[in-house]
């Protein structure tokens, strides 16, 4: 198995792990973390296309790599927005969970 | 010669892996912090060895970045722990 295929499979496994965490964790920050895990898995899958596409005298394909770099920064910007929204949500509601049952409970039902 | 570099890298990666498993298990949060420290030193060594053996150019710059970022993350974690314990002055 070549290193690029191995890295691609790792990326696929990471996407699966992240998806699992994204669905199951009630805490929004943990969800965000899991989402970032999916993101990096996707970048890895994308990156091995870069390695497989070695052509034109390069050891790698620079196009997907450059796009992964852009993608990492954009993913961070999106995470920052998500964090700001989560903090604001908790400030408004004194609550940090996304569980709808807690939301409908009287007195906000403090999560702690 | 390259095989020797890779063997050394393999040994270091293996010890880092075992160390990570030990530290991340805890029991305290502070102990988990050492994981970043462990990767900062062991990781950089393994990175340099692998890159020199496989001829990746410009890897010193990556290692420099890692050397800067490991303490950066640790300071942030320490700040969080301090806040957790009341952010009191000592």
């Amino acid at each position, binding site marked *: 198995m070549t290193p690029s295929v191995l890295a691609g499979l790792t990326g696929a496994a990471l996407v699966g792990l992240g998806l699992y965490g994204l669905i199951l964790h009630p805490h929004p920050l943990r969800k965000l973390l899991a989402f970032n895990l999916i993101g990096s898995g996707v970048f890895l899958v994308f990156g091995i296309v870069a390695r497989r596409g070695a052509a034109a005298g390069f050891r790698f394909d620079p196009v997907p790599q450059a796009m992964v770099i852009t993608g990492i920064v954009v993913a961070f910007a999106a995470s920052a927005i998500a964090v700001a929204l989560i903090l604001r949500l908790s400030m408004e509601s004194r609550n940090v969970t996304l569980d709808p049952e807690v939301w409908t409970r009287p007195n906000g039902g403090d999560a702690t | 010669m390259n095989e020797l570099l890779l063997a050394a890298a393999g040994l270091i990666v293996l010890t880092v892996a075992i160390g990570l498993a030990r530290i991340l298990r805890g029991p305290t949060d502070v102990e988990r912090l050492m994981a970043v420290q462990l990767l900062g*030193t062991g990781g950089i060594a393994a990175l340099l060895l692998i890159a020199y053996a496989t001829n990746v150019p410009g890897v010193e710059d990556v290692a420099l970045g890692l050397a800067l970022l490991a303490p950066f993350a640790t300071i942030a974690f320490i700040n969080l722990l301090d806040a957790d314990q009341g952010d009191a002055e000592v």
Partner: protein
Amino acid sequence: MTTLLQLFSVAAISAGAFFFFAGTVGLLRFPDSLTRLHALTKADNLGLGLVVLGLLPRAENTLSALKLLVIWALVLLSGASTAQLIGRALRRGRK
């Protein structure tokens, strides 16, 4: 690269790998967090120093060699000071 330098490189890298190994043994065997921190920061920093020393003769040019040394210096600085910070956090946590 002369044979002597090559020999030196091999010896230094092997010694470096050994110290990483020793650090992890300490990490696994030592009884409490403070001693584990000790094993981690001391042995690993020495190990990295030896690895850097062993790679120096293989560096492409002077700038690369200089960068290798700066990497080690940075890790030494951050290792020493973050070990202090972690140790203090450990002590506060125990109280």
